[in-house]
């Protein structure tokens, strides 16, 4: 299914209201400055907000050089993950505004890779774009062949949340069309494909498996819960499993669509099978192992039903670097 203009516009306009507090150890003025209120684009990155935030605090900072980083409840935030993904992943129960702490000193370089502001965010974006291109096309020539100024313009359109500019630049990117590989396989089974003008290369059905760039963030909790507000807070990133792995689209006999559930289960096979069965299976040594259960799947802040065709999800909800970021909350298998 092709991208729906309205859906993509909705994604690009998505934003998270942030309330940014200066870390108390860095408050050098009296009284302490009030928090800064900033609307952060979901598809953007935290380092891009610094120019908006810094004016609020510059008079309160102790002397010295800036090395800026953010934390949420003590957890340092990975600046190269899109802001919307951080929010969906770290706030089980969405917190509005989202309260973050900004630091201008004491960069935790033992846990966070260095960030030199906008340049780092741009480098990360282009690198992710190249990786996505490699996954979709089998090479990243399309990105390498783009002129420097076109690459600049593409990045600028993302920085500014300018969907129109981005859409105008897309043809220069020449990214392969993900949709073709899906619809071709589906069309070959329908009688309609034999009529009409579109030529379909029949040999394609045998050879190609589409690969879709996906970044999966899995948060596992030990106990089931009734409400999201009962989900415990995160202490460290070690509680989250990150899978940077393409989904391989395979069309099975008798199935019309490859669903979001199919995609997630291909990456997390231990959550596949009959979801209604949450009671344990006897292990050989007599211990019981409870199968894990997927509680929540969020993409661009939307909690999706797992039966939606994956092609729709990809084409409408992916980020500008062509990656689909999926946040999943699961009840981990008990051991």
């Amino acid at each position, binding site marked *: 299914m092709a991208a729906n203009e309205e859906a993509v516009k909705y994604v690009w306009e998505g934003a998270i209201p942030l309330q940014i507090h200066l870390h108390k150890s860095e408050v050098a003025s009296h009284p302490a400055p009030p928090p800064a209120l900033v609307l952060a684009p979901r598809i953007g990155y935290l380092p891009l907000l610094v120019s908006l935030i810094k004016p609020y605090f510059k008079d309160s900072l102790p002397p010295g050089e800036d090395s800026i980083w953010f934390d949420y409840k003590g957890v340092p935030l990975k600046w190269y993950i899109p802001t919307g993904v951080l929010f969906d992943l770290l706030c089980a129960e969405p917190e509005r505004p989202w309260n973050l702490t900004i630091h201008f000193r004491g960069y935790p370089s*033992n846990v966070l*890779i260095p960030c030199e502001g906008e340049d780092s965010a741009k480098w990360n974006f282009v690198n992710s774009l190249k990786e996505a291109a490699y*996954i979709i096309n089998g090479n990243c020539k399309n990105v390498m062949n783009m002129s420097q100024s076109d690459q600049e313009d593409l990045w600028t359109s993302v920085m500014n949340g300018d969907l129109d500019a981005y859409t105008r630049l897309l043809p220069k990117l020449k990214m392969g069309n993900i949709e073709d590989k899906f619809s071709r396989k589906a069309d070959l089974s329908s009688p309609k494909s034999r009529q009409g003008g579109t030529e379909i290369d029949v040999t394609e059905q045998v050879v190609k498996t589409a690969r879709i760039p996906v970044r999966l963030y899995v948060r*596992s909790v030990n106990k089931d819960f009734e409400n999201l507000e009962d989900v415990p807070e995160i202490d460290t990133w070690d509680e989250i499993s*990150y899978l*940077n792995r393409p989904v391989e689209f395979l069309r099975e006999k008798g199935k019309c669509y490859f669903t979001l559930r199919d995609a997630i289960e291909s990456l997390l096979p*231990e959550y596949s099978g009959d979801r209604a069965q949450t009671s344990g299976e006897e292990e050989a040594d007599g211990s019981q192992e409870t199968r*894990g259960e997927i509680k929540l799947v969020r993409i661009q802040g939307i909690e999706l039903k797992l039966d939606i065709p994956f092609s729709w999800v990809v084409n409408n909800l992916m980020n500008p670097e062509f990656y689909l970021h999926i946040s999943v909350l699961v009840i981990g298998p008990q051991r």
Partner: protein
Amino acid sequence: MDSAGEVVNDGKITLEGFTVAARAFADKWKRHNLSFPPWSWVPLINRTMLKKEEGYLSLEKIIILSSLEGSAEEESLDVTADWSEKEESVDLTVLVQNVEDEAHYYDYHIVYSASYMVPMLYFRGYSSDGKPLSLDVIKRDLPSSSVSLLLESKWTFITQEEHPYLNRPWFKLHPCGTEEWIKLLSESSSSDGCQIPVELYLVSWFSVVGQVVGLKIPREMLI
């Protein structure tokens, strides 16, 4: 020839193939590279992923001794790791050459990239007090030949990125076009033009990549 779909014939390798190749690599290394401790296979088991067959290769606490002035004349590093042949545990006794030498410790991980379908080398260096070494310091530990390779070439460079599984910054070696030179290696080494068998994939890969970080493998491993 595509043995059970493990090595794709354009120089890439599948996840399953990587697991097989890793085991074969670690075995050969243990048998033929006695000046080094063995590589260990680290399975990816955590609370959500029960995939015991997935993992990465790890070689840690390799001591590189270098004088602070740099070792411009040396082609190979003075590498040593004090380890007991009887046990797996590594005793970190440092051999000090002269007062200007400083011991630097290195960890190497060979991790599979599902996106590019090739292995990637991650590494980090630290001093005896555990403080991470900067890239400038690390480059001084590398053989001069590889430093010029890094500076001049467009096909290999080092970046600082987050380790895919450990939530910490590591250095990653990017050999661009890995699949292309693996293909070249396989074409030149086999008489009938067949691709590298999966058991030798990582050996071939490391024979090139290892040199960039100063780790050479003995010829016997290539058989």
